[in-house]
């Protein structure tokens, strides 16, 4: 569904990604592992159009999206819950969520359906629906971020380190929800540092190190691969 080929990208004089190749299949959960600074966020930001790639191609459902602006990409069916969440802090949870549907402009009934789906996934958000997003706890904010991405009814959901800064129990909860979304048929591209927990849910995984893919394989295979550890700890 998503094909990233020979992608190079970076900021100003910094090259972050070097010839990255990644494929995310429809309906599967694809994991991108890597220590921080390995380029996961840049990869995701390039896919969702926040950063322009320098070379290489990105295709989604056989159409090139590497030249599209981010609003076009959302409309094409890719939703990105970024690292740092980037919520609208002073708007209510519900507003944040409905804004997630901005590109889709769904009808009222569809919107309601999508909203119900998010609230089913994260019941706590229903309780807090009229609170300002900025006033929520980190975990709840992460749920809003995921929920907002889901509101565009994406074919591919990109999640960048949803567990960052969260307590282990909350992480568990969030990852469970991601797995649930995936099991309902939405493709997921997930970046995680917390490799072990995530590999349990994933179908396929890539390991990034210093802007390159150094390992890839079925999640179950990666789970106990010492190379993964090496990529993280530089053993």
């Amino acid at each position: 569904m998503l094909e990233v080929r020979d992608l190079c990208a970076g900021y100003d004089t910094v090259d972050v990604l070097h010839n990255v190749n990644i494929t995310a299949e429809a309906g599967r959960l694809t994991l991108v592992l890597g220590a921080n600074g390995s380029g996961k966020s840049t990869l995701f930001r390039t896919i969702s159009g926040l950063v322009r790639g320098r070379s290489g191609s990105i295709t989604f459902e056989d159409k090139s999206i590497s030249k599209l602006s981010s609003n076009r990409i959302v409309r094409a069916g890719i939703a990105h819950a970024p690292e740092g969440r980037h919520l609208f802090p002073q708007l209510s949870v519900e507003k944040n969520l409905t804004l997630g549907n901005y590109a889709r402009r769904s009808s009222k009934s569809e919107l309601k359906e999508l909203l119900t789906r998010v609230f089913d996934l994260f019941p706590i958000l229903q309780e807090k629906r009229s609170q300002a997003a900025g006033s929520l706890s980190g975990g709840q904010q992460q749920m809003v971020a995921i929920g907002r991405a889901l509101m565009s009814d994406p074919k591919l959901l990109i999640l960048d380190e949803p567990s960052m800064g969260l307590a282990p129990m909350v992480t568990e909860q969030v990852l469970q929800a991601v797995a649930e979304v995936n099991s309902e048929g939405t493709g997921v591209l997930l970046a995680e540092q917390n490799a072990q927990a995530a590999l349990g849910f994933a179908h396929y995984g890539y390991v990034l190190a210093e802007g390159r893919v150094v390992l890839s394989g079925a999640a179950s295979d990666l789970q106990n691969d010492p190379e993964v550890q090496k990529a993280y700890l530089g053993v």
Partner: protein
Amino acid sequence: MLMQVRGLSKTFGGLHAVEDVSFDIAEGEITAIIGPNGAGKSTLFNLITGFYRPTAGSVTFKAKDITGHPAHRTAQAGVARTFQTTKLFEHSSIAENVLAGCAAGSRSTLIDAVFRTPRHRREEKASMDKTLELLEFTGILEFKDEIAANVPHEVQKRAAVALALATEPELLLLDEPAAGITEDETARFGQLIRQIVARGVTVGLVEHKMSLIMSLADSILVLDQGRRIAWGTPEEVRSDPRVIEAYLGAGSQGSTSQEDGIQERTPGQGA
């Protein structure tokens, strides 16, 4: 101990970014700070260098308490730093950048400059000499007249170090010095850091590139969720289960079994 950090904490609106962290930086050594994303490394850096004011705890440098001193005073005391996203005076030439570092420590006033007093001329000469020496030392002399924004990233990284060194620090703190440069460049950068230590400047660094850290650091401080979870030599840290857990998640025991289906890729080769 050159620097002693005791019980340092910082909360931002209820969130504990750094909590009760203690460690030492020994003179003439290289101390590294590592940890997963969001572990509080940069916050710790900012606390030590006076960009943030700690909520609790103390920082002692050369037996003097510098807790909560503003950044410029910390720098004047002998603690220099670089930034995560390389910061340079990007519209100035590389040489002017380093000169700015010299300027920061200079005592001369506008009066001196206007009337070209002996002190002024002496300092100007000294600054220029020091700049050239530092550019040579960091290996970027040939770029001295280039505008900082236009030089390759590696050169910028080195210029940032030269700039920091121009303030004649005793402790140099590097925030992700190897981010965004290639492996070869990283290796060369490691050499530079060793040379800096050889000059008599103690080095502390935050870094993600484990290859660099493991081969360079004398001691490593590992943070997770704002707390210190390990502090020791590279070997100690590497085998510390808490560190492995922090990085890889619970359940990882660092199994050594290698199974089929894994393609190893060499860098740059592509699919």
